[in-house]
């Protein structure tokens, strides 16, 4: 078995009274790209800085490619770090910046020039190699920063909100370029972001962080479809959360039901929270409700381009949001004030021992 590219164990860091990292552990495989996603102040940037050695943890270990980093300064950790504000050397050329790491390490100029050109090529800036970084756009500057970080052949790449300072079009393009470069180089990578879309698109896995802890570490698909906590469900995408009850392999929120998968929660008895993504809620014309369906009153309808968004209240009184594709048969027919039938295509539950559950009359 190969060693993980990065492993952290029981990492703790406090600033004064405030605990920013609450004794967390994580293992990242060699070559894997892990996205650390969380709201600002959740500790994700602190984690990155501790891994880089720019901050000292109060407790816990960091191992990069199997090597314990205790007492190792940032320059000897074999890392590349990309900052949100690019952090380029002012009034210097692209080449000067990319070659900086090799220069301070005393790499002979022949090797340095070759490697520098190679990296500039890699990020597609060959034309701009001798231009001053001040004349470059934000996206180009961040590509310089990426090339500079990779030029010293690190074994771990750390990206701290690398795209946050860019406008949306540039951000989306550069996101794909970063993914392509990362796969090509095959480097173990941690990217810190507060942008769920970025995390979903880039991450082989996503670590969702909140108040110094990991809420869930899983593939983008699992994080979205089977969120481990209410926080994860709410932070990534939109979600309906309804009080529910388990009954014979299904979870009921009022009359609305979903089949239970095997996610470890006993499928009968007990109160739960039923989590439904708006796109998993679908509408049917009014009529006789079948098992698992319920009636709902449409409060408002709005067009979001590719989707129609319907805000409703179920007959049990729960607010419910649905997203219908434009091609959905009901999309052109539904309007505020209508009564419709709703059904849930899929969903997931979280244990909620003290929850309100389903109304008594239903069971």
């Amino acid at each position, binding site marked *: 078995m190969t060693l993980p590219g990065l492993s952290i164990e029981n990492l703790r860091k406090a600033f004064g009274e405030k605990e920013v990292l609450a004794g967390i552990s994580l293992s990242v495989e060699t070559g894997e790209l892990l996205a650390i996603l969380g709201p600002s102040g959740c500790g994700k940037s602190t984690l990155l800085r501790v891994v880089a050695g720019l901050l000292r943890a109060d407790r816990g270990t960091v191992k990069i490619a199997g090597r314990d980093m205790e007492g190792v300064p940032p*320059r000897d950790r074999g890392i590349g*770090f990309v900052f949100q504000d690019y952090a*380029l050397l002012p*009034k210097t050329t692209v080449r000067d910046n990319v070659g900086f790491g090799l220069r*301070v390490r005393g790499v002979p100029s022949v090797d340095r020039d070759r490697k520098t050109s190679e990296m500039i090529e890699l990020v597609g800036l060959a034309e701009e190699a001798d231009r001053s970084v001040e004349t470059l756009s934000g996206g180009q500057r961040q590509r310089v920063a990426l090339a500079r970080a990779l030029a010293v052949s690190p074994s771990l790449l750390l990206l701290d909100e690398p795209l946050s300072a860019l406008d949306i079009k540039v951000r989306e393009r550069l996101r794909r370029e970063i993914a392509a470069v990362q796969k090509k180089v095959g480097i173990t990578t941690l990217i810190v972001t507060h942008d769920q879309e970025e995390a979903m698109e880039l991450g082989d896995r996503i670590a969702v962080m909140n108040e110094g802890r990991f809420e869930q570490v899983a593939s983008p698909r699992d994080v979205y479809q089977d969120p481990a906590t209410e926080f994860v469900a709410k932070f990534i995408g939109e979600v309906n959360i309804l009080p529910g009850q388990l009954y014979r392999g299904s979870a009921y929120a009022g009359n609305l039901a979903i089949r239970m998968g095997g996610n470890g929660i006993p499928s009968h008895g007990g109160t739960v929270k039923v989590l439904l993504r708006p796109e998993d809620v679908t509408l049917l014309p009014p009529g006789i409700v079948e098992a698992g369906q319920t009636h709902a009153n449409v409060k408002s309808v709005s067009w979001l381009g590719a989707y129609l968004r319907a805000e409703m209240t179920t007959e049990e009184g729960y607010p419910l949001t649905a997203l219908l594709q434009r091609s959905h048969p009901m999309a052109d027919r539904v309007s505020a004030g209508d009564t419709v039938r709703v059904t849930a295509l899929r969903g997931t539950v979280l244990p909620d021992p003290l929850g309100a559950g389903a109304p008594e009359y239903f069971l």
Partner: protein
Amino acid sequence: MRRSPDTDALVRGATFAAALGLFFLLILLPLVSLNQYAVREGIGVFWDRLKNPDAVAALRLTALVALAATAVNAVIGTTMAFLLTRYRFPGRKVINALVDIPLAIPTVVTGFALLLMYGPLGPVGRFLGERNIQVMFSFPGLLLGHVFVTFPFMVRAVGAVLESVPRSGEDAARTLGAKEWQVFAFVTIPAVKEGIIAGAFLTFSRSLGEFGASIMVSGNLVGRTQTGPLYIFSRFNTGDVEGAAAIAILLALASFLILLLLQFVQSPAGRSAA
């Protein structure tokens, strides 16, 4: 009630006139009268007064001390600014407040204190004197006084720039393999270059006019430890008003040119951050 445009214009005009009037009365006119004294016996005589060997020696010493004080403070002032803005350590606030002390206490007091410490009667002075090193009434003492008095200028000029420079540049260099001295030399210094230049101009210009500390520590030895301002004072006291005025106008002009130059160095075009 609305004020008429006429009233507004009047108020603005009056304010402008008052500011300009005070500027003339308090700053420009004294300089003009200085100029008149300096040249009232003709430009040739003015020139002769400048060429007086004692005057030349005093001006040379003034320039030399100012240059040396600027160089010393460029090093220790920049380092101090770096420590105060980039590190958190116990006593930082106290040291930060102490940096401005030279601005607050009279320069004569500064000179007096240095004299008591490093003079023939002071503990350090006696120790050095026994080893034949004389600090007071010589160039080193003068330099010490000027470094002390001008110390805050460099620290504050560099500190202000450093506050606005994000630490990520320095951190990036660390992750790329730079040792701490390389971070300082290749990232910090280039980033605060403008602050150092501005601080150097202020230090130099302040040093040119330094009087209080100089008169205490120099001994005012003509041709040896007498700086420009001390020369002016001595000449005036002995009744040579024209001789004093000639040097005075030269020093005033030099200070003005330095500060004018500073205006151009600090132009917004030269301040764009990367």
